[in-house]
Structures are given as structure tokens and as C-alpha cells.
């Protein structure tokens, strides 16, 4: 097997907090091959976004290696990193805050193109319009500002911007959690088709196991900053080994497989037991 496209080894991230440091990510290692998708799941606050930020070098890891296509970017200086930045991009958890409110959708999506050296403004805007169309936004969105979009639409602008850089790695931090199911499905389809076309690699952060099942090839489960389980999506979701994973899996509400009514009888018996 060839070298994985992204290899993270013994990643540790500490945050400075009053009176010391807080270890948000504790000795995590994983890798993804080119053109594949890894999903990161885990409870809220377990360090998923922190991993994303570390991959983007928005935080500097305390220790460990992040090898991207053979280059370790974990402790690279910002100046050295800058030329490489277009190769790895991220879609943010917070769709509203991550868009500059004074720019139009078209300008936002066109910005990465400028950095890539597309000189002509017309050309940039044309390319941006194409991308915006690809993520399923109507043409009249081009001149709107972020505040004029709904959460789901903003999320898609974020995705379009990330794609504009033609990245080789895209980290999606809860990229679909603000969307309702139908839009979510559309976005997932889009991401997949792009992967088929360009061989892009995804790191997909989500707490929706259904979504994970749909998009990822492998899954890593995190708890309190540590990696608890790692394996192919099929195996982790259908036969979880670790307690924590099982707990997660059990709690997941899967309407497609649910039948029956609201469990009144069970609740009543619970309540009675409590009163006793």
C-alpha cells in the first residue's frame, strides 16, 4: 500500500486556560488514503473541532505529527505554510460566522481564486458562479450578503468557497448539522460526486451516525480527547466493539428502522418505579 495522504501521529493539543492547560486532544493517531473519507464522531466537546483546527493549523499542536502528502505541517511556520494552504481547506461548524458579512456570495467564493493567481476579475466571478451553481444555490444568490441567506444556504457557500481552492483535503466540521434532512442529503450527494471526480480526501466531523454511514469509508470514535475506536464504517457501525461506541450507537434514533408508538407503558412503569 502507498503512503496515506493524511497521516496524523500522536497528536496532542493543549489549550491555555486560567491556571494551566487543558488537553483537548490526547495522543490521537489516524490516517486516510487519497480519495477516501474518514468520519470523526463523539460526544460534544470531545475534541472533534480541535482536531479540525489542528489540521488547518489554526491551532499549533503541542506535539505529534501531521503529515500531509509526506510533509509534516504540525510545526511549520505560518510563512512556510501559507503557499501550501490552498491544498487543505475546511468547512466551518458555524456557517454564519465564517462568512465575511460585508462581502457578497460571489466575492466570498471568488476570493480563493484570487490567491491562486487568477488575475481577471471577470474570470474569477465566472468560476465562482459555476461553483455556486454546483452547490445548488440559485443564480440570484450571487449578489446577496451572508445575512440574507438561511443557515443551510450559508453552509453551502462555505462549501463552495472551500472547493474553490481546489483542495486535496477538505475538513467538514459538522458541515451539515444546520441543514434539514432534505438539503443535507443534497449536500452529501454533491460531496460524493466531487470526490468521484477529483479524488479529494475528506475528514468529516459529525454527530449524526446516519450521515457518517452515508459518506465515510472509515470512522474514528472519540471520547474526552482520546481515540476509542477506529475502523471501517461498516464494522464500527454494525458491530461496535467499545462500550462507548455501543452507547452511541444505541442512542442513535433511526426513524427508518423504528416502528410503533410512543412508549407510554414503559414510561409509566419507570415513573412508578421512581415514586416507589
Amino acid at each position, binding site marked *: 500500500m502507498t503512503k496515506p495522504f493524511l497521516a496524523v501521529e500522536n497528536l496532542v493539543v493543549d489549550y491555555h486556560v486560567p491556571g494551566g492547560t487543558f488537553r483537548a486532544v490526547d495522543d490521537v493517531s489516524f490516517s486516510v488514503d487519497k480519495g477516501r473519507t474518514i468520519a470523526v464522531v463523539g460526544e460534544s466537546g470531545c475534541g472533534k473541532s480541535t482536531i479540525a*483546527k489542528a489540521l*488547518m493549523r*489554526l491551532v499549533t499542536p503541542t506535539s505529534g505529527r501531521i503529515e500531509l502528502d509526506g510533509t509534516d505541517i504540525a510545526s511549520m511556520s505560518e510563512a512556510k505554510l*501559507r*503557499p*501550501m*494552504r*490552498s491544498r*487543505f*481547506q*475546511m468547512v*466551518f461548524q*458555524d456557517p454564519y*460566522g*465564517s*462568512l*465575511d*458579512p*460585508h*462581502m457578497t456570495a460571489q466575492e466570498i467564493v471568488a*476570493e*480563493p481564486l484570487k*490567491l491562486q493567481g487568477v488575475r481577471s476579475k471577470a474570470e474569477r466571478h465566472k468560476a465562482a458562479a459555476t461553483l455556486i451553481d454546483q452547490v*445548488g*444555490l*440559485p443564480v*440570484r444568490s450571487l*449578489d*446577496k450578503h451572508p445575512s*440574507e441567506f*438561511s443557515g*443551510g*444556504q450559508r453552509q453551502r457557500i*462555505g462549501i463552495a*468557497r472551500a472547493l474553490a*481552492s481546489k483542495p486535496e483535503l477538505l475538513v467538514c466540521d459538522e458541515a451539515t448539522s444546520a441543514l*434539514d434532512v*432534505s*438539503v443535507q442529503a*443534497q449536500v452529501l450527494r454533491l460531496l460524493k460526486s466531487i470526490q468521484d471526480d477529483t479524488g479529494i480526501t475528506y475528514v468529516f466531523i459529525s454527530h449524526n451516525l446516519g450521515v457518517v454511514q452515508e459518506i465515510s469509508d472509515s470512522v474514528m470514535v472519540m471520547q474526552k480527547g482520546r481515540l476509542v475506536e477506529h475502523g471501517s464504517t461498516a464494522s464500527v457501525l454494525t458491530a461496535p466493539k467499545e462500550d462507548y461506541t455501543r452507547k452511541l450507537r444505541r442512542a442513535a434514533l433511526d426513524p427508518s428502522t423504528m416502528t410503533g408508538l410512543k412508549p407510554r407503558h414503559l414510561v409509566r412503569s419507570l415513573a412508578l418505579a421512581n415514586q416507589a
Partner: protein
Amino acid sequence: MSLDTATPAPGGAGETVRQPSPSAVTKADIARAGATRRRNAAKWKLIVGTICTLLVIIPIILAQVLPLPDANFQDLGARRLPPLTDGHLFGTDQLGRDLLSRVLHGGQVSLTIGLLAVLVSGAIGIILGAAAGYYGGWVDTIVSRVLEAQMSLPLLMMLLLVVALFGPSIPVITFVIAIAQWPEVARLTRSMVLVEREKPYVSAARILGLHKIQILIQHIIPNVIKQATLVVLLLLAQAVLLESALSFLGAGPQRPFATWGRIISDGQDYITTSWWMVTLPGLVIVLMVVGVNLLGDGLRDRPRRKKKGA
């Protein structure tokens, strides 16, 4: 079927199956609605602001061509005439000069000083405030300490000293006023940038590979500039008043230049007998400042043009 989350169309035109129920919105509801009030207020501000501003600006621009006595023409026999006597709309001053003419000619100088000062202070304030807020660290420490130092210094004394040092020429006075005013802008900009730089769109820009300075100029400043310029607009009045305080304390532009500040500070000796000599120029300043600020507010509050094709 588009999954695009659309705004429900007014009047419920979307669903054909449903029988559209009548709207319960009455005229009174509309009149009382926040949006209506805001729109009306913005319109009112725009109109009144424009009128007030133009009422002052146009005569000032036309001062040379209006049929007015020369601003420096003295008629010692007709000194301190009250307004509306002998064709002097604003009356005359202590040397029998036509006050209106002086106010208009003075306005040219004062407005130039005021606008330039406000531009310079706005530029310095926004640049330094933004740099301090964005870069933090030693840049912030230095800017903050300078701000603090300037606040802890008796402002007028410093201004008087600087004027004494470089002479009371118009560029010096402009500069001095700008120096006096930049902290206000800088402080505001700094605190806004502090908030702004933590927003995810800054991280987003960083990921794209933008240089720090590019992020500051292309993303952060455009997002704070609107608020900052509103403060700068208010400073215009302060600039004119500061110039008059300087004149009051003797550091105004060299005589016999008429400026608003000078006219007011000269007139204050006569305030108990010839009220108009201070009050009328003062009112002109108030009119203009109120006008400019209403205009600014109105432009800000004006409802965005509807772009939606829905």
C-alpha cells in the same frame, strides 16, 4: 422541486391547494410596525438631514458669489447691529462687519479644517486602532499606552503648546485637532476589531492562505469601518468646537481670518449685549452638525433595497 429554503411568499401565493385566508394586518398595524417606523424615521432623517446640511453648505460654497458685503469690510458706524437691520440678515459684529458674510466665509475655512482634521484623525484612529486590536501584543500595548497617555495629558494645554511651537497656521491647527481626536476613533476601532478578529471568518480567510495584513485590510476593516465613520461624523462638530476653544484660548488661526471658532470666541465678549454674535454662528454649526449626523443615521438605517426577485 427546489430544496432551496425560501421565504414564504407574501399573501401565501405558494400553495394552490389552500384557500388563502384574508390578511389580518390593518393599516394601523402597519403604521405602528417597527419596520414602518424605522423606514419613516430613516426617510425623515435623510430629508431633514439633507435640508439642514444643504442649508449650510450651499451658501458657504456660494459665499463668493452671493450679494453680500465683503467679510472684512468694516463700517465702524454700524457696529453690533442686531439681526435683520439695514440688510444685515445676521446683524453685524463689533467692527460693523456683516456677520452672515463672515459666517459663510469663515465656514469655508472651518469646514476645510474640520473635514481635514476629521479625515486625518479618522485615518490615524482607524489604522492604529485596527492594528492594536488585530495584532495585539506589543503593538497593542504601545497604542493603548499612547491612548492612555494622551488621555492623561491636559489636552488643551498640549494643543496650545503645539500651536505655540509650530505657529497657528491652518495646517498646524488641522493637525492639532486631528491629534486631539484620534483616540476616540482608535479606541472604538480597537474594541470592534477585538471582537471581529475572533470571528470564524477570520480563521476562514487564514486557511485560504491570506496574509495577516490582507485579512486586516480586506476583511476586518471593511466590517468595522461603517461604525467607525459614524463616530467620525460626530467628531466633525467637535472639531469645529475645538477650533473655537483654541481661538478662545488664543491659539486660533492668525487674524483676520474668519473661522467659526474665531467668530464665536470673539463674540463671547459681547454675549450679554449682542447675543447674535455667538448664537447665530453657533446655530449654524448646530444646524450643520445635526444635518450631517441625521444624514449619516438616515443612510445607515435606510432599508436595504429589495434585491430578492421572489
